[in-house]
């Protein structure tokens, strides 16, 4: 099971908590999928006066580990302030760091990301950076103290799956000691299984479950898929081939004609 900053978690599926039809459906999804870590985004507006306390208490009552999230922050300053607020609300040093660079694709501003990661790490945070599959950016993130990488699969909420399988393979190969969590763009359990088959350590998603017709059943499907993908990776899958290879031996077969 993946270990983040020295903490081993029990399920390689991480779930976001936004957009569910109701808190009850969210709770049911978490229960059925047995996820261990959920992300929670803080709107700075709610944080200021603790006005979102009721919802945060619901999350705390679920008995899962919380990974607070600086969702929809567009600047380093915003992200750092939100992270500090999150630490107070959830009493954790973990922070999923999002610094968004483009409003249409919601892709990370990797320059701001590295800068915010440096600042937060120095301030004692354990940063989970939402990044691209870029190797150089990943290297910089590790240099400033990150011990986890969270590359995107595809743009947030797009349900496109793994847009750049080569990029993720390459990231896996270059940083084989660092936990990699594919975050964003996952639409189907097969996408999540695919990420795990590539050797990624975990998958984080939200919309694909929250907006499904039956969120709890979909959460379970994703949990099963990451588990299957992980087992497949550990079981040393066979190589792809251009030719057919008969699974039944032909040598020694009786000639009946």
């Amino acid at each position, binding site marked *: 099971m993946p270990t983040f900053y020295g903490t081993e978690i029990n399920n390689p599926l991480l779930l976001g908590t936004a957009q569910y039809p109701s*808190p009850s459906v969210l709770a049911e999804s978490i229960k059925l999928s047995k996820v261990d870590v959920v992300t929670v985004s803080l*709107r700075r*507006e*709610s944080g200021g006066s603790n006005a979102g306390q*009721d919802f945060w208490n619901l999350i705390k009552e679920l008995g899962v580990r919380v990974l607070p999230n600086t969702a929809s922050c567009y600047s380093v300053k915003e992200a750092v302030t939100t992270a500090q607020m999150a630490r107070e609300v959830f009493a954790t040093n973990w922070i999923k760091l999002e610094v968004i660079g483009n409003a249409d694709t919601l892709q990370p501003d990797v320059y701001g990301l590295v800068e915010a990661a440096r600042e937060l790490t120095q301030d004692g945070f354990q940063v989970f950076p939402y990044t691209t599959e870029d190797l150089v950016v990943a290297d910089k993130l590790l240099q400033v103290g990150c011990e986890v990488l969270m590359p995107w699969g595809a743009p947030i909420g797009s349900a496109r799956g793994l847009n750049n399988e080569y990029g993720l393979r390459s990231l896996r190969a270059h940083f084989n000691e660092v936990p990699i969590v594919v975050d964003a763009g996952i639409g189907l359990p097969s996408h999540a299984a695919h990420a795990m088959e590539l050797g990624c350590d975990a998958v984080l998603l939200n919309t694909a479950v929250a907006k499904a017709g039956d969120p709890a059943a979909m959460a379970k499907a994703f949990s099963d898929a990451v588990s299957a993908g992980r087992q497949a990776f550990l079981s040393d899958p066979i190589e792809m081939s251009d030719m057919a290879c008969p699974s039944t031996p032909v040598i020694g077969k009786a000639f009946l004609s």
Partner: protein
Amino acid sequence: MTHSVCIIGAGVAGLTCACELVDRGMDVHIFERSQTLGESACSWFAGGMLAPWCERESAEQAVVDGGMIAADWWQSHTKQVIRQGSLVVSPKRDLRELKRFARLTDTYRWLSGEEINAIEPDLAGRFEQALLFEQEAHLDPRKALADLSEYLNVHNVEIQFDTEVTAAALQSDFPNAHILDCRGFAAKEKLSELRGVKGEMLILHSEEVALSRPVRLLHPRYPMYLVPREEHQFMLGATMIESSQRGRITARSMLELLSAAYALHPELGEAEVVEIGVDVRPSFRDNLPAVYRKDNVLYINGLYRHGFLLSPAMARQAADALEQPDLFAALPLCA
């Protein structure tokens, strides 16, 4: 024996309960802490859509079941119900949102661009597909509340404004009465599970755009609806934020709401902003309303974003419980 009932709170829950009980011949008293109708009721800022089938997109089947009686109930107690259906559209690049909406709902029909133009000429050429929920209706919430107040007045029930009362005080003043606590989020000290879901809305005035029915614009991030009101006004709503803060609207929310309105029709960019409303929807964890009991008090709460849609069903449930002791006893206990 005539039932005597004291209702605390003259928002949509309190007033619908009052009317339903009056209809059943009960003796009703209403107490409201604010000085005028709607002043401290979140229903004042409601959209007023009686749209159970559309709500199914994100709500349980119970909302459809409970909401189906709403339009008839409101029609029999107010003059505000407009039965023109509701229209759901999405920008061309977000057509998948419209398809998803269609998958999760029913009782609609698909409209082509031409059919949209025929029923909403001001949207001509703007959308190629839409869903029309013909059986849905809408009303102006403020006028509807005023009509209920008038309905009660005609039936000799006066709302006692500027009167803050507690269930305990009423129990000693009216020892034989039942009490309905319809205070919304203010009842949180009795209903600990209650949480606030902040909603922000705008009222726009535009003489350039006219609509005959509520229009929902689907968007992956900023879904929005526009409900036409009299005198060229529109209710533009509404945000859904996990927060129990009644403060002011944020710039971000205003930006998102107005961007969506602009996407629906660029002429709305020229509309005047007549009013900004912010309030907190009282909500239980399943976002469904419920009736709880304790001693001789019934708590009707958790109407979430379905005040006008579900209050008639809740009023019926409360009234049935007052008339039938076995139903009363079967209600869940307030912790």
